[in-house]
């Protein structure tokens, strides 16, 4: 049931407990209990909204930064990752395999703001060896959902 609920709300967290219970052939009590457990165990970490900011007037820029770091003895990459993700500007931090160590995704109001963050906060950190900043020009799809307008239903209204 845990997995069923997670799959059902993965792309639509707006589903009500009542609807979930009906659709999964369960009871409202069971669904609420499981949801509570999942939240307590921090398996469900939040219910954010997927917004296409490009269509809203306010300016926003997103940058993906490749970071090479020196891991610390006994702590590996976790400590430095934590130092980085504590900043409010940071949206995501991933530990990577391959040519660099951390992917850091930053959101800022302007390109200057992002550049400042990299120059003033990120790059000077002792463990950080190097950074490479890539600005996002356009977002097409996020969280498995296309950001473009859903296309119209082109089917005939009725068919056998």
């Amino acid at each position, binding site marked *: 049931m845990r997995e069923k609920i997670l799959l*059902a709300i993965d792309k639509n967290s707006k589903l009500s407990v009542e609807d979930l219970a009906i*659709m999964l052939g369960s009871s409202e009590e069971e669904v609420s209990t499981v949801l509570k457990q999942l939240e307590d165990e921090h398996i469900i970490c939040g219910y954010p909204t997927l917004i296409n900011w490009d269509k809203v007037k306010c300016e926003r820029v997103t940058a993906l930064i490749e970071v090479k770091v020196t891991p610390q003895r006994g702590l590996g990459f976790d400590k430095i990752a934590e130092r980085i993700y504590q900043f409010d500007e940071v949206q995501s931090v991933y530990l990577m395999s391959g040519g660099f160590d951390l992917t850091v995704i930053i959101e800022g109001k302007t390109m200057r703001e992002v550049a400042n963050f990299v120059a003033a906060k990120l790059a000077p950190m002792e463990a950080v060896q190097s950074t490479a900043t890539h600005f996002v020009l356009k977002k097409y799809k996020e969280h498995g959902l296309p950001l473009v307008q859903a296309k119209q239903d082109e089917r005939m209204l009725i068919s056998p």
Partner: protein
Amino acid sequence: MRNPLSKNVVNIKPSGIRKFFDIVTEMKDAISLGVGEPDFDTPWHIREEGIYSLEKGRTFYTSNSGLKELRMEICHYLHRRFNLQYDYEHETVVTVGGSEAIDLALRAMVDPGDEVLIPQPCFVSYYPCTVLSGGVPVVIELKEENNFKLTRSELLSSITDKTKILILPFPNNPTGAVMDYDDLKDIVDIIIEKDLYVISDEIYSELSYGEKHVSIASFPGMRERTIVINGFSKSYAMTGWRLGYAAGPALIIEQMTKIHQYAIMCAPTTSQYAAIEALKNGDSDVEMMKDAYDKRRRYLVHAFNNIGLKCFEPFGAFYVFPCIKSLNMTSEEFATQLLLEEKVAVVPGTAFGDCGEGYLRISYAYSIDNIKIAMERIERFVSKHLPMTNR
């Protein structure tokens, strides 16, 4: 001038859906729960394979019975999913949708005067295709109290010494009924004893929400008297590609292929290449879509029972078939009024046979948001028209 028309054709009634379709198209901003096709796009890797085949210039005819690789994949699939064994070379033919396969099977087997048993409510084409092939359609009216399954006694009482073919359309469009292992076991001995042939239309086989679909051809003694019809439209959301197939004994498939060869030549080549990809790598797509349908199915059954329209639980296809007998209206009046008053298009049960009177076919090949809006309107409509005594 002589009358250019064939009496046989003119005498066929136009499809009940067609009539209603004309009313619906007048209505501009109607929302619908009326379609008989998936709302999903064909999965991208399948479409991409079709595009690739075009880029490679694979724009020629294939052999009449279809690409060898596709027929081999079809046989693998039928074995893997339903434990059916067919020889791809002599026992399969790839057709233009399941519909063509139905037509071919009837034309290959029916002689004038042969009786064909058609359990209704059912898909619209069995009856006219039987008439066109010179056969005599004999309707078996299925009942809600039997969950719209074909029972042993219904079958027995419909058989005469002219009966040759039984059409078995399960999982069923429009009722959503399925025939499970025990239901089929119950009728198999009659079919063998009375020496009948079966056209088993299993186009919705992947959309079974209870137990796994069982094909009647998998029963001992049935393989040699069954034509299994299946296709890609419903399971892989490929209606527009027009691709289906039939599998059965070489004796019958050979004659079906002959008609197909002269009337159609071969199924669309692009679609055949895409279908190979569907069978090879499409299992997870089928699973994902089935899962989504299942949620909507539960939602709709619950919603209809909640607003006081009794709705039996369907275990297949993507339709619910609620009963509207508590309202003083025919199915057609209900559907027409609902369209005019609330702008929701549904299909009256009578489009699938006279015994569909008192029912509606509601499709859940729609997003849950669309279903919710439609159900709110249907609820408003029903509460307005439900007689006081039934509230």
